[in-house]
């Protein structure tokens, strides 16, 4: 019989534990309680509210069961579909924009020796400032009368653009603000990926005579797949949840032309206090996002190596 070393024996004790209660349980109990109260209970409660009529503006408001009426109303509500469409438009533009720009900047930064640290430090600013401040700062800078951006445009091109008030531009302007805020994060994620690549790969490819573009396309990107997927996942989740960037700049306007589903749901719940429809749409949005996230996570394997 082979003897276990004392350290191994202790190690298996750590893993398996002894006694009645599993040793890991007490470590998890506080977290489980918090998740039960703040994640599981709200979702169950939202599911119940979603099949009820519950309008807080009415006197003696209480939940009255009305079956699937809220979901039926949701499906025939053009504002719901409009919001959903704009959520996708916003997410696609914001995510692709920040990924493309982010990759390019990370690629350039990776080749840079002198000043790299300074650039990295500056890139921390947009992601660490509150989206509230970002939204208000851009609302100020984009202002048609007092904004520096319009003043610059006026001086150089002789035009002024109502970025946040123009029906054709409002949604894209908010997406641009989102790109501004989150591209630096993409840069830092992808830079971590680029820095982790072995130098030999490049040398081998360079000897084979691969040009810069082919090198990126066939060597760098495939090796960086995990980092690109993580960046894409995080950016997509956040893009669907964007609130301040829209609410505090255009408030969904003009009309509803920059109103994403997230913003619409919040409006139904906390401006009109129609808790039933808001819950139905909120659940729909949650399932949609978690569905997309699950595909990312399961297909990409981006999180697999963390969950052994």
């Amino acid at each position, binding site marked *: 019989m082979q003897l276990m070393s004392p*350290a191994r024996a202790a190690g298996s004790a*750590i*893993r398996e*534990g002894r006694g009645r209660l*599993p*040793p*890991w349980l007490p*470590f*998890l109990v*506080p*977290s489980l309680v*918090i*998740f039960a109260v*703040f994640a599981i*209970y*709200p*979702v169950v*409660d*939202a599911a119940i*509210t979603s099949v009820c009529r519950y309008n807080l503006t009415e006197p003696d408001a209480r939940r009255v069961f009305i079956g699937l009426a809220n979901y039926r109303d949701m499906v025939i509500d053009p504002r719901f579909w409009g919001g959903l469409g704009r959520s996708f438009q916003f997410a696609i533009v914001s995510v692709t924009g920040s990924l493309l720009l982010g990759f390019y*900047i990370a690629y350039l930064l990776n*080749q*840079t020796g002198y000043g790299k640290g300074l650039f990295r*430090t*500056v890139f*921390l600013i947009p*992601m*660490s*400032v*509150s989206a*509230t*401040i970002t939204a*208000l*700062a851009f609302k*100020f800078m984009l202002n048609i009368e007092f904004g*520096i951006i319009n003043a610059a445009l006026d001086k150089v091109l002789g035009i002024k653009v109502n970025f946040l008030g123009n029906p054709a531009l409002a949604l894209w302007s908010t997406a641009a603000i989102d790109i*501004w805020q989150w591209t*630096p*994060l993409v840069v*830092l994620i992808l830079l*971590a990926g680029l820095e982790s690549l072995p130098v030999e790969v490049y040398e081998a490819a360079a000897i084979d005579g691969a040009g810069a573009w082919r090198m990126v396309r066939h060597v760098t990107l495939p090796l960086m797949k995990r980092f690109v997927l*993580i960046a894409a996942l*995080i950016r997509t*989740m956040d893009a669907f*949840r964007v*609130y*301040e960037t829209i609410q*505090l700049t255009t408030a969904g306007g003009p009309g509803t032309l920059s109103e994403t589903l*997230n913003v619409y*749901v*919040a409006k139904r719940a*906390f401006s009109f206090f129609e808790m039933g429809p808001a*819950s139905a749409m*909120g659940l729909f949005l949650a399932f949609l*996002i*978690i569905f997309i*996230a699950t595909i990312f996570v399961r297909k990409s394997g981006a*999180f697999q190596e*963390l*969950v052994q």
Partner: protein
Amino acid sequence: MSTYKTLRIAGQLYRYVVLTVFAGLCIFPLLWIALTSLKPDVGEFNYDMSLNFTPTIVNFADVLTRDAYRYYLLNSAIIGVGVVMVTLPIGAMAGYAMARFRFRGKDNFFFFVLSTRMGPPVTIAVPLFLLMLGADLIDTKGGMVLVYVFMNLGLCIWMCRGFFEDMPRDVEEAAMLDGLDHWGVFLRIAIPLAIGGLVATAILVFLFTWNEYFFASILTQSDAKPFTVHLPSYFGNRRLRWGPLSAASLMGAIVPVTLAWIARRYLVEGFTFGTVRGRR
């Protein structure tokens, strides 16, 4: 000079120009706000864009004394510290369990934790609003702390797990042989060894709490109102005063930017749920 060398210098120059422009874009809004905050307040609906002015701190004084902005900043700080003090011990415990024990359903629990950050806040906003209403916690700092503890717990668990995982097991195993139980190992060995990572986690939790707007805008009115909820009132339809708006924004921005700089080595890790490790 050979063509090759010229090309290389040109390439380098181009790279620095692009990077500098991008860095400039990153820093410009904050810079513009800082400049505006130092300009004399010219009253509502007025703004002089020229850089020809005598710097003044009147906007800061105005915002801090007349507008009670200091109370909202203080609220943000109190709530942030409270959240860190509750989240960190709980998250560290769970993170330690995830790093050091094997149990059934661990993967699922992990993905569940991840989904709490992925899901849109608006989905649970209605039930939480009703829950807080029922528990009489609307507009209380304690209630806000509870909500933010939940919002940051997932991040905290994922990050702490990574730090504990990185530590060599030998020390803990030796300590167990010396008679320490799991709690003893956790408190006396694991936490001191992971303290750098735990501090970084605390900083990030504070930063995310400090910056939050959505839940605060629903769940607070005055007593527990953080600065993020007060800030948009400077941009109302009846009030448009650039100086105070900029001064207030700048004060709200300096704290997280400083914290991000302190925890810079861990920042990307925090924003990516510990999936991307930067260079330490």
